[in-house]
């Protein structure tokens, strides 16, 4: 029959039960919206974080300890990389710098009489602050009472913005430091490319003299500073070779190998490895959410099927009339199938913008750029349509089989 007429009839029957139709498609709306939300959010995070990792710090080799059975980013926090190790790493061919990183527990930071609680400062070397990362000022010097703040700390933490030249006081459990702010940075070189959604306030101080984690170095036979993490910055042309050499050193001769507790594996990761791991995690989350969405869609399909069966019963007489004026079983089947399909498609079309809106909100919240995932969106709508078709098949078949005589007698 005339497809336009089928459409008109099906659409009219949906419109005549607005509330019922709306309630019916909620399952589909939720299913589609969650798929779209997470596909879009995942794509956005991937584009931003993974893309960002790949082009920033492509020549960084991250040295860290990981629990052996962990696949993710779990980082062992024991300080095992001694200054001896750092010196050996710096001697590897193609290494430009080795930037260690350790944390110093603190209680609070005061700037112009405004005290803010802060749990840790980062101890590192002057090489961590490069021209690319500096917004203002310069790096601190080894052995000086100087500090560098990141923008979150300088611009969004204290009542008054911190500028280069200001003094801050850092309160610790048993002492107080007075430091001169010599630089403001936007991130630091060799920073691990994970966990930086929404920048936290950061306070960087020279490891010498402030970092106090010291261990007995088995190789040097002396007490040396040791860090839980270090980043080897390589000459971009030899990142691969450096990674291998670092890995070899770690496994064969390092202090870290002897200091690391059982179950901690020493690894040299490149930003590509991190990008891959983040992708894996995003994929896992996407799969999980897709699972939930599939359940919502199945519930949605059952809802549509249920309401379509009710509709067939309610409209038995109408089916009889249509058959009496020449409708074939196929026409009746088509009409009901189309109606179910429209419900599914309607759910998808409501779910799509809803999902996009939620994803947009999530990207705002996570401070990543919004990346539209056109394939997923198209797929979501298609799935909605298919859910409608699947849900409509049995009711439509029932409708097609209605006996016109019985139907016309039906009151």
């Amino acid at each position, binding site marked *: *029959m*005339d497809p*336009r*007429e089928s459409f008109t009839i099906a659409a*009219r*029957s949906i419109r*005549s039960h607005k509330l019922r139709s709306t309630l019916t498609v909620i399952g589909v709306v939720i299913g589609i919206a969650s798929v779209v939300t997470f596909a879009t959010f995942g794509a956005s995070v991937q584009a931003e974080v993974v893309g960002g990792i790949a082009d920033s710090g492509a020549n960084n080799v991250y040295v860290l300890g990981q629990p052996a059975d962990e696949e993710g980013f779990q980082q062992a926090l024991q300080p095992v990389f001694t200054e001896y190790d750092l010196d050996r790493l710096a001697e590897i061919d193609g290494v430009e710098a080795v930037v260690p990183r350790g944390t110093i527990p603190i209680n609070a930071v005061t700037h112009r009489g405004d005290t803010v609680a802060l749990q840790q400062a980062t101890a590192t070397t002057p090489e961590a602050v490069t021209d690319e990362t500096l917004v203002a000022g310069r790096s601190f010097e080894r052995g000086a009472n100087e500090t560098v703040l990141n923008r979150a700390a300088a611009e969004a933490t204290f009542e008054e913005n911190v500028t280069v030249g200001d003094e801050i006081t850092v309160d610790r459990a048993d002492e107080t430091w007075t430091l001169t702010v010599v630089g403001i940075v936007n991130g630091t070189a060799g920073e691990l490319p994970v966990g930086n959604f929404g920048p936290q306030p950061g306070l960087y101080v020279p490891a010498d003299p402030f970092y106090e984690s010291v261990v007995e170095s088995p190789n040097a036979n002396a007490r040396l500073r040791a860090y839980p993490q270090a980043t080897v910055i390589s000459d971009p042309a030899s990142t691969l070779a450096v990674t291998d050499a670092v890995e070899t050193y770690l496994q064969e001769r390092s202090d870290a190998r002897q200091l690391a507790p059982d179950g901690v594996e020493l690894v040299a990761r490149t930003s590509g490895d991190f990008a891959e791991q983040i992708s894996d995690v995003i994929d896992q989350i996407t799969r999980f959410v897709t699972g939930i969405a599939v359940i919502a869609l199945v519930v949605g399909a059952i809802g549509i099927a249920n309401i379509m069966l009710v509709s067939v019963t309610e409209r038995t*007489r*109408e089916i*009889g*009339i*249509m*058959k*009496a*004026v*020449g*409708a*074939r*079983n*196929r*026409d009746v089947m088509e009409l009901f199938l189309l109606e179910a399909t429209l419900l599914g498609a309607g759910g998808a079309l409501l779910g799509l913008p809803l999902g996009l809106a939620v994803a947009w909100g999530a990207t705002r919240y996570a401070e990543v750029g919004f990346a539209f995932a056109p394939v997923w969106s198209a797929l979501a709508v298609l799935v909605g349509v298919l859910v409608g078709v699947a849900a409509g098949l049995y009711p439509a078949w029932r409708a097609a089989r209605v006996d*016109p*005589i019985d139907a*016309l007698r039906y009151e």
Partner: protein
Amino acid sequence: MAQADADDVVTLSEVRKTYDLGGVVEALAGVSLSLPRGSYTAVMGPSGSGKSTLLNLVGGLDTATEGTVTVGGRDLSAATEGERAAIRGSRVGFVFQTFNLMPRLTAVENVAMPLVFDGWGRTERRERARDLLADVGLGERLDHRPTELSGGQRQRVAIARALAPDPELILADEPTGNVDTETGERIMSLLDDLHAAGNTVLLVTHERRIAAHAERIVHVRDGAIERIEELSD
């Protein structure tokens, strides 16, 4: 009895229809009858005598248990479901006691409905429906829904719908059963006009006064033809 004739629109021969609901109900017990082209026949009989069953078989709404029903030369018992639907949609026009209009469709849409299944274009359908509604005196009620029409008006919409595909045969089952006497007369005069215009009409009624509009009355009782009464005007 009735022999197949090239100019008979409908031929029934030895038609039996039984319903098996625990016990067998014989609604029609061997009926043979033919309707010549342009004839006007009334079927009369008490309630439960099988009148509606007969009409439904002729209209292709139902199939005979035994015997053959031929409409326009086509044996309905040999027809597929799709072919019977096509016959219902284009060769016969039904008028029911309870009107059986689509409640959500307007008068025009109701009348145009058979044409949808008959494959007409949208504008042709509307034009034809409008003309037919004007013919039955409802030119001013085109976009009214059945609930906004009186019983007599609804039945006139139903008649216009029955005429829409220009059928060979008009089947009316108690068309005046749900309207008052005066309205009934108007509907009957519409059917008279259709007959006068050359249409073949088969009318089912249990009222003598209504049956008297036809050229002949087939009296049925207990699923069998009792006698055929020819009327002269």
